[in-house]
């Protein structure tokens, strides 16, 4: 009886499947990250027990240009040696008119900020699109004044049980 009660309060645990994409678009640069890991607990009928705890391997960044990749990983930008991951940990997931919202903490470049990530879940795939202001995380070497501050991020994450 205790086991079944415990199971009742657990949200479904999902594994990230192949074919996911984590893309960012700031004009120049644009690209993707290919190292997504973490645990996803999500149940549409039990949002209170749902939780995202995911990380992105910063070294997996790819802009399509080797020189830009090296530059992005360097001390002036993501500084992958000091801050090897980007992490998002949710504190609450709620339903919205267009889908869902995951409120939590986004940790990047040694800075943690409260962040709300809108997303949808359909056909065992999480979809999310949002913007991140790189200045909030001090991602600026001061030499690219023309680079847009807001990066458009698009996540498509198929999952399996």
């Amino acid at each position, binding site marked *: 009886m205790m086991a079944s009660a415990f199971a009742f309060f657990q949200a479904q645990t999902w594994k990230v499947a192949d074919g996911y994409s984590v*893309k960012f678009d700031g004009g120049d640069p644009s*690209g993707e990250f290919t190292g997504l890991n973490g645990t996803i607990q999500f149940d549409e009928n039990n949002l209170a027990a749902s939780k995202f705890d995911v990380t992105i391997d910063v070294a997996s960044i790819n*802009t*399509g*240009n*080797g*020189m*830009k*990749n*090296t530059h992005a990983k360097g001390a002036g930008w993501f500084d992958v040696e000091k801050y090897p991951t980007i992490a998002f940990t949710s504190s609450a997931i709620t339903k919205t008119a267009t889908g869902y919202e995951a409120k939590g903490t986004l940790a990047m470049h040694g800075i943690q900020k409260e962040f709300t990530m809108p997303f949808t879940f359909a056909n065992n795939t999480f979809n999310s699109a949002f913007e991140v202001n790189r200045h909030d995380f001090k991602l600026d070497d001061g030499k690219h004044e023309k680079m847009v501050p807001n990066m458009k991020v698009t996540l498509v994450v198929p999952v399996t049980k």
Partner: protein
Amino acid sequence: MAAIAANIYNQVYFFATQVDFSAIVNIVTLVSVNIFVSLLAGLLYMLSTSLFKERGVIVFNLAYSMGSFACVMIPIMFTLPLSQPFPELFPGLAVPMVFFPVIAWMTIEPLFPS
């Protein structure tokens, strides 16, 4: 001649790195680009020898060499499709190829004395 050299180098580079750049660099693109560059060089040679007479060959050779060096930046700055793995290896393939047309020209040109 430059296209032949480029295709041989393409095969050698693939053998050495096992990274396939054929989506961007293949026999069609190599032949097309080398023909285009060589035709352009021919036109510029004609122009240079018409304008500068005896010094036209010197001016052309200088311009062709310097232009080739300047073109080194093209593969370095080139953005590959995100699906292409190991983009950092692309300059190693494409930069030497930038010099093949000018090398071919310098090799063949003395065979056709004016």
